[in-house]
């Protein structure tokens, strides 16, 4: 029978939550990596029991751990992320130059075709690649050394590379996103990169239409339509129909177009989900009501989904990697909150249930659909 496995990264460790295909009874694992921050963990699409995790600690730095049995046991693998060559500088918050310095891994993206190949997006922004199951890491340095690099500046969370989208048609092609630089695309496996930010507009930078400098929060796409990208920017929900060459706004009738998470229905490429957040200085839902918004038209027309979600006195946030979908016939949607709650909908968002409460603040949610 099919089943679902949810990988939850939190401020103080990770959890694996499982259910069978009915998705009614959820089992929550013991806390793993106690005390460590888990910005992300994600399984290989090739080998579902191969999971990569990125525990980090203000005291003890970065670890990368790998499980080959679905999260039952873990082994440390390589944790050396050395920038390649001269590091140069990026902009600090006040506009002064600041040398690149490794802080942490934000995102792990296993290959679509090779269980030993995995990418890591790090802070300060750079992209690393491992082809030996995480034992060793090598920077794809052409991204960081792109001519615009000295103009990149950190978002509130740091200068982080947080989104890595691999193209199912072509392993050489990927789109990444950096806060606050923007989106970049390579068509040659990372040897060269181009900024793909035309159409983005950000009032917080000197030239609102600049080539780089945009605080992209997250990008999602449906695997069947790799060129259609949906972006939650700092402000604005955006869409591109040509792999990022041009973007246009689809915020439409959202109550606020600020937010972090965005995802796409597993079977309906035009059905997308966001969690509107009031503003960049008020990281909580408008009116203290937690609502997911769904568009069935690829943006612009949105409906509030609130059944089962708290509708008063709710002041949580949902972070960029904290929403995911399963691929069962009735698509399941999942997200975690800064209050340590994980919600699931097994009817594409029409209704929600809390499947676990009182975890540490949730940083990431990834869902696996198991055969």
């Amino acid at each position: 029978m099919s089943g679902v496995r949810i990988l939850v990264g939190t401020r103080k460790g990770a959890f694996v939550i499982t259910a069978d295909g009915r998705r009614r009874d959820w089992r929550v694992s013991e806390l793993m990596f106690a005390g460590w921050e888990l910005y992300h963990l994600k399984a290989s699409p090739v080998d579902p029991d191969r999971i990569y995790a990125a525990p980090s600690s203000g005291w003890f730095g970065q670890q990368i751990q790998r499980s080959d049995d679905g999260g039952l046991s873990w082994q440390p693998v390589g944790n050396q992320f050395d920038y390649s060559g001269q590091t140069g500088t990026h902009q600090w918050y006040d506009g002064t130059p600041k040398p690149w310095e490794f802080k942490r891994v934000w995102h792990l993206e296993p290959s679509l075709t090779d269980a030993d190949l995995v990418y890591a997006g790090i802070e300060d922004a750079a992209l690393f690649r491992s082809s030996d199951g995480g034992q060793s890491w090598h920077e794809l340095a052409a991204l960081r050394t792109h001519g615009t690099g000295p103009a990149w500046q950190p978002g509130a969370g740091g200068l982080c590379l947080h989104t890595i989208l691999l193209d199912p048609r072509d392993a050489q092609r990927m789109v990444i996103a950096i806060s606050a630089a923007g989106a970049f695309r390579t068509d040659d496996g990372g040897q060269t990169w181009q900024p793909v930010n035309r159409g983005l507009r950000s009032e917080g930078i000197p030239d609102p239409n600049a080539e780089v400098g945009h605080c992209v929060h997250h990008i999602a796409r449906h695997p069947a339509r790799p060129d259609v990208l949906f972006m939650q920017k700092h402000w604005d929900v955006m869409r591109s129909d040509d792999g990022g060459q041009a973007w246009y706004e689809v915020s439409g009738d959202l109550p606020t177009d600020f937010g972090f998470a965005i995802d796409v229905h597993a079977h309906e490429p035009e059905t997308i989900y966001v969690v509107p957040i009031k503003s960049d200085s008020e990281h909580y839902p408008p009116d203290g009501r937690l609502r997911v918004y769904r568009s069935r038209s690829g943006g612009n027309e949105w409906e509030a989904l609130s059944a089962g979600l708290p509708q008063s006195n709710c002041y949580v946030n949902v972070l960029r990697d904290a929403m995911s979908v399963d691929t069962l016939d009735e698509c399941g949607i999942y997200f975690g909150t800064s209050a340590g709650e994980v919600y699931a909908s097994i009817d594409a968002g029409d209704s929600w249930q809390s499947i676990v409460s009182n975890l540490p603040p949730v940083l990431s949610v990834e869902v696996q659909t198991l055969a």
Partner: protein
Amino acid sequence: MIRLVLPTPLCTLAQVGREVQLEVAEPVTLERVLGALEARYPMLQGTLRDQVTHRRRPFIRFFACQQDLSHDPPDRVLPETVGSGQEPLLIVGAMAGG
């Protein structure tokens, strides 16, 4: 035999008890102790010091014999009682909240 007391998260990571014992060639310095520790427990590489520059991580402290050795040069010989195993070298995570 050198005695080392590790912070709890690193005990978990290395799957050892609170205190580990290491053979370290004389003269016994912090550099040599950390090298021996990382050689025996490779999963601790990068947790105490940078893997390339060997610079101490900012929130890591080294204490022994009621002294703070954190800022001593790494090639300075450790107190004789540490080198002889009478006193442990304490590796401590700074009290920085969390």
